[in-house]
């Protein structure tokens, strides 16, 4: 990916020096002599880095205005000899770095690539923060919806069962009557009622399944945090889901030596379950699911890889979004991976997906060995409607 760099400053010779020093395929350059025009250009061009010659009237206000843009590029000041003091002041005002003239091309390139790197890091952090924030507010919304749906669906579910029982009772009573046209008609009506209530029951079970997922998503249930053997969790989850697997799915395990991990075991099991079910669903013909665990320094790395159909590159960025599914209505809820994401995040870990169309998909989970600050504070559920 190219880095976009914007050069701002009046003196043509400075711009030219910069342009010449930064001739490289990975850098895309634009120039703008005027500071005000440069600010407008930022929106259109969204540069990662701005190189600003400090001949501008008011660098401080330029920096300030830049900071309030959505793109918030990283600024490196090009400073005339002898103005180190001033440059340092501008650093306080929000510039990332300064380069004293005369420019040494090697140094310039190095400093610019540092600035680009910094911008990348900042963007990544910002993305994570917004994602976390989105997840948190979504959690509250979902908890509310799940709570509102729970009682009505409970009533309907029970009622459809009561209806079935009542119809069965009536059928029993009617069957004792002597044969007649009325009897046949009553029996036909009861048959209709019986079929209807049966369908209602099945339909309810589907809604209940979704509501249960929503509840888990919103709350992450609060069983205790303890140090456990991850392999036990993997094995028990595997046993649970294996019976759903088609016979064409083969599971291979490659477990490393792991110390006990501080975690919410049932939550991690939920993670394994979602990943394993997804993996098996991705396998169409014959396929393998590989589970691998390793200790790597202060972390544990768990990979679940399948030889399934893979994920489109364009979809890869969306799979952790709540509601994203390619499985079609009534099949996928698109909640599985968003729950997985939340749980891993709450444990202070990371999860990444890597996929090749037609070859398969690998999910890599990294969990810190030591209880992280986050993990101890996050899963405490905020006071929420309970029961009802």
């Amino acid at each position: 990916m190219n880095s976009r760099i914007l050069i701002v400053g009046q003196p043509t010779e400075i711009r030219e020096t910069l342009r010449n020093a930064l001739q490289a395929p990975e850098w895309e350059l634009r120039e703008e002599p005027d500071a005000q025009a440069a600010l407008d250009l930022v929106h259109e061009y969204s540069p990662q880095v701005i190189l600003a010659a400090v001949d501008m009237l008011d660098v401080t206000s330029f920096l300030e205005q830049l900071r309030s843009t959505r793109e918030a590029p990283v600024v490196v000041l090009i400073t005339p000899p002898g103005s180190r003091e001033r440059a340092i002041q501008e650093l306080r005002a929000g510039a990332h770095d300064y380069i004293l003239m005369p420019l040494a091309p090697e140094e310039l390139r190095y400093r610019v690539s540092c600035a680009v790197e910094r911008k990348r890091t900042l963007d990544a952090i910002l993305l994570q923060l917004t994602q976390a924030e989105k997840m948190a507010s979504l959690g509250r919304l979902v908890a509310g919806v799940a709570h509102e749906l729970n009682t009505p669906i409970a009533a309907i579910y029970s009622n459809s069962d009561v209806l079935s029982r009542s119809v069965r009772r009536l059928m029993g009573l009617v069957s004792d009557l002597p044969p007649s046209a009325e009897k046949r008609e009553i029996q036909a009506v009861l048959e209709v009622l019986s079929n209807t209530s049966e369908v209602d029951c099945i339909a309810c079970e589907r809604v209940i399944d979704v509501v249960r997922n929503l509840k888990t998503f919103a709350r992450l249930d609060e069983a205790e945090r303890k140090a456990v053997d991850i392999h036990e969790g993997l094995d028990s989850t595997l046993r649970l889901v294996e019976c759903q697997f088609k016979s064409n799915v083969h599971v291979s395990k490659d477990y490393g030596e792991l110390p006990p991990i501080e975690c919410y075991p049932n939550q991690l099991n939920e993670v394994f379950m979602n990943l394993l079910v997804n993996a098996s669903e991705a396998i169409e013909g014959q396929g393998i699911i590989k589970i691998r665990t390793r200790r790597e320094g202060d972390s544990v790395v768990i990979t679940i890889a399948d030889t399934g159909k893979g994920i489109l590159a364009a979809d890869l960025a969306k799979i952790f979004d709540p509601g994203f599914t390619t499985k079609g209505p009534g099949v996928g809820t698109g909640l599985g991976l968003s729950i997985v994401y939340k749980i891993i995040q709450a444990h202070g870990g990371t999860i990444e997906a890597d996929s090749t169309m037609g070859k398969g998909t690998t999910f890599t989970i990294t969990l810190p060995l030591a209880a992280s600050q986050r993990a101890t504070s996050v899963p405490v559920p905020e006071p929420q409607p309970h029961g009802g």
Partner: protein
Amino acid sequence: MPETGTVERSTLGSQEYRGLVVVDDEEIVLTSLRSLIAIATDCRIDCYTEPKQALESIRRNGADLVIADYSMPEMDGMEFLSCVRDFDPEITRVLLTGYADKDSAIKAINQVALFHYVEKPWDNDQLLLIIRNGLERRLLLKQVREKISRLDDAHAEVKEMQMKLLKAFL
């Protein structure tokens, strides 16, 4: 086809009043449970949306098994069930909740000596089984209590006879 989960009055001592009391602030839950109990059991059932009224009724008429919703505006299910327990610990107590939350389940079981914990949406067969077992527990407790008191009586009688015998010989 045999109906699973049917609560037969005969198994519960037919001479007795077998009453369920259900409290939930949502009328639709009460209506559903009322219909279920009517079609699948021969228990009596009284339903209340107000925990306070339910308590009054229990104090007046007694009850064998009480089902309470966890979250209710005026008095939550735990508080309600602990009042029921204070009144008569032999009444079987069941809590209904919206979430399968193991921590509060354990807390509830310890705090109010809960008999069972049912998550909404509940499964009718499962609920009926819980009700049957809960009523059986109630009946057993009662029988044990009666036996003990009869034993006590017998014991007292023996003592009295002993005294009389002693007196006769002294």
